[in-house]
């Protein structure tokens, strides 16, 4: 499973004081971009340019924590549309489907969690480097996921 992102250069970071913005602002209007989610034969990517990527990986981490039992199901709601990603633990795998694309991705739970941590660490470093104000934001600093911790 490939789980990655592409930061958009169009989000309006110039209009925000990233050192002080609150959690809602961070989860809706900061670090926007494309979600890249695919396997060899299935592509559930959402190349919409506006997906809040910090929010996405925080939500995915929460979802992963709830998929700890066979049969468990969780849904990720995108912030600006009725589109959804659906997650289920079936046959020892995490099965991922989308409301906006065909196909299913299947991934081992341990690999799913590893990909989430890699995504979080990568984007955490990238945005903290590009936007130093964000690195001092007290809400952002509390999100240990971006330091590679769950």
């Amino acid at each position: 499973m490939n789980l990655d992102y592409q930061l958009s250069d169009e989000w309006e970071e110039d209009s925000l004081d990233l050192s002080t913005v609150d959690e809602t602002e961070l989860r809706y209007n900061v670090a926007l971009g494309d979600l890249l989610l695919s396997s060899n034969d299935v592509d559930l990517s959402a190349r919409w340019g506006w997906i809040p990527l910090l929010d996405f990986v925080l939500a995915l981490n929460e979802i992963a924590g709830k998929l700890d039992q066979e049969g468990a199901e969780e849904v990720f709601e995108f912030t600006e549309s009725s589109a959804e990603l659906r997650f289920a633990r079936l046959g020892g795998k995490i099965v991922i489907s989308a409301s906006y694309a065909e196909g299913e991705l299947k991934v081992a739970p341990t690999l799913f969690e590893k990909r989430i941590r890699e995504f979080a660490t990568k984007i955490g470093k990238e945005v903290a480097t590009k936007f130093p104000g964000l690195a001092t934001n007290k809400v952002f600093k509390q999100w240990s996921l971006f330091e590679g911790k769950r």
Partner: protein
Amino acid sequence: MRLLRPWLISFVLLASFFGVSYPASAQRPASARADAGQQIIISERTIHHIQDRHWPDSPAQGAGKYSPGITVQSLRDLINEAVANGRSRSNTNGRPGRIYEYDFGRPIGTTINGNPASRLRVVVNSRNQVVTAFPI
């Protein structure tokens, strides 16, 4: 009665000091909508955000769009009606705030697939500020 009065006063004082809470399983009362009936706030920045993502001529992909002819005033009216009359739930995926959804029974826009949308989703933060609102 004379004996009851000090006891009643103490009870009322204690109740107001500790606050009144609802069991987790109980529905939030109608008056708790948008945090105790307070007016929601729709800032100019939020209007611009909605115009960028959800206006009929917005190029943003993967986002619901309002019908042609929408105005800032009619957008405000739709949002206020949805918050006043819509179903409310906690925001999802660990996000703060609440979500209101209301079916207007007529098309107000299109879904991401281009199908007619009659429902509006409004996201409100914990300070009663509208974060975004879009047809679904």
